[in-house]
């Protein structure tokens, strides 16, 4: 029995992008116990949404909960508000929402993959992934007019239409990206040193994933088939545009990388189908009603299941808005999966969870 060391990682650490704090108890650099504190950035967004902002403005406020999954938050909120207002949005708006969500998923997954590479000590792959990610940012800018804060969904529909030349540009860029994606899959799959760092590391079994209610690619890599796109179809018709569940069985960092890379392929397919089958209709359903009653909405953000609960009281301001971010569900699983790993692989494991603490703490 070696001497126990306590290694604090965070709230500021080179390998962390987000303000979270882990305290690892290690024996000869082997982690035996983990404590976590993930709430460093409580911003009171829920309180602001229920007091300061009108319900139509809230979709812009919740977009600021997170920079990466901005569109997921705005869409989820818009859907919950539409449920409260009891309106159905036009089909074209649904398709456009799916388009932007999937483009966003590509860029979020590539960002996560690049950070896994960086935290494994593979700076060149980080640079390469970031270089290949640039196309998705430009496409989002072309579609939404902004690189990060899309402000694309509003209550009742979407703000902008997809211009034909932009649609052409998306298809062209996706064709250009396909060989690059193949190259990335090759590197992440076959690079020997990277597999030393990633294979068998940060494992979570399917039973533990189920017991700890893990969501997103984290759960799918462990073989737990949980994806909101597979479960709900009332709000966005995912199956119509070629959604397919991606799972792996290993449950380690490598499996998470592979799940993300293959999900990018699925996203590309969805985007192509959306553009091919874009229905003609209005963009927004206008209504003069006020939100009333209770409603919940689930949506698959890049990191997993996003859950919105809202309660309206027939005024401009909501009574209560509850946001559950994907990382919130993963906290218990995150803490669990560190045990019996080398401290040296801890940064790569953290990055492979793809934690989004701004979402979690709100």
């Amino acid at each position: 029995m070696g001497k126990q060391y306590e290694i604090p990682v965070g709230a500021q650490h080179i390998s962390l992008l987000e303000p979270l704090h882990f305290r690892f108890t290690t024996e000869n650099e082997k982690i035996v116990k983990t404590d976590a504190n993930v709430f460093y950035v409580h911003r009171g967004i829920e309180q602001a949404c229920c007091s300061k902002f009108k319900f139509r403005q809230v979709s812009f406020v919740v977009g600021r909960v997170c920079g990466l999954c901005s569109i997921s938050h705005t869409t989820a909120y818009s859907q919950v508000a539409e449920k409260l207002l009891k309106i159905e949005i036009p089909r074209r708006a649904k398709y456009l929402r799916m388009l932007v969500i999937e483009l966003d998923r590509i860029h979020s997954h590539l960002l996560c993959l690049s950070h896994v590479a960086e935290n494994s000590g593979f700076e060149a792959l980080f640079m390469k992934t970031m270089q290949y990610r640039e196309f998705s940012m430009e496409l989002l800018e072309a579609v939404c007019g902004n690189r990060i804060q899309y402000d694309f969904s509003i209550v009742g529909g979407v703000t902008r239409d997809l211009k034909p030349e932009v649609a052409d540009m998306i298809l062209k860029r996706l064709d250009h990206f396909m060989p690059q994606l193949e190259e990335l899959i090759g590197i992440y799959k076959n690079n020997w040193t990277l597999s030393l760092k990633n294979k068998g590391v940060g494992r979570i079994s399917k039973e533990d994933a189920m017991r700890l209610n893990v969501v997103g690619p984290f759960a799918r890599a462990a073989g737990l088939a949980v994806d909101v796109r597979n479960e709900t179809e009332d709000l966005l018709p995912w199956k119509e545009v070629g959604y397919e569940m991606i799972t792996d069985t290993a449950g380690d960092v490598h499996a998470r990388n592979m799940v993300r890379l293959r999900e990018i392929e699925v996203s590309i397919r969805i985007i192509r189908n959306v553009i091919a089958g874009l229905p003609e209709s209005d963009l927004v359903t206008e209504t003069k009603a006020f939100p009333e009653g209770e409603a919940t909405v689930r949506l698959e953000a890049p990191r997993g299941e996003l859950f919105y609960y809202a309660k309206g009281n027939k005024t401009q301001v909501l009574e209560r808005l509850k946001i559950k971010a994907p990382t919130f569900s993963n906290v218990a699983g995150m803490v669990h999966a560190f045990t019996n790993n080398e401290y040296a692989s801890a940064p790569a494991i953290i990055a492979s969870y793809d934690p989004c603490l701004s979402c979690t703490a709100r």
Partner: protein
Amino acid sequence: MKKIETSLATLKNDLASFYNPAEHHFMVMNAVEMGEKMEVQWFFCDYAHPCETTCFFTLIERGEEVPSIKDIVDSAWVAEAELVDLMNINVENTAKGFVLEPDFESGPLLKKK
């Protein structure tokens, strides 16, 4: 969304008979202010397609102790700790100070009087 009313006394029995880790997925806990009382909610959903969201809820007085469901749902401690700090609800066996600093004024999400 299916809403099932329960009470503090029967909550644990209800959840134990309902919750099956292979079928259901615990999402989050939530509390809504209803005047003087508070509505505490436990959200579950299915892994199946089409999925159904189930919500257990109960009305409590302010300051009343809510039983913890940690022994039924393993990952519930995060949601419970969040409610304790943000909504100032008294949950069994859960200390303050996970979501906010321990010396922070508790209940920032409560409506200002």
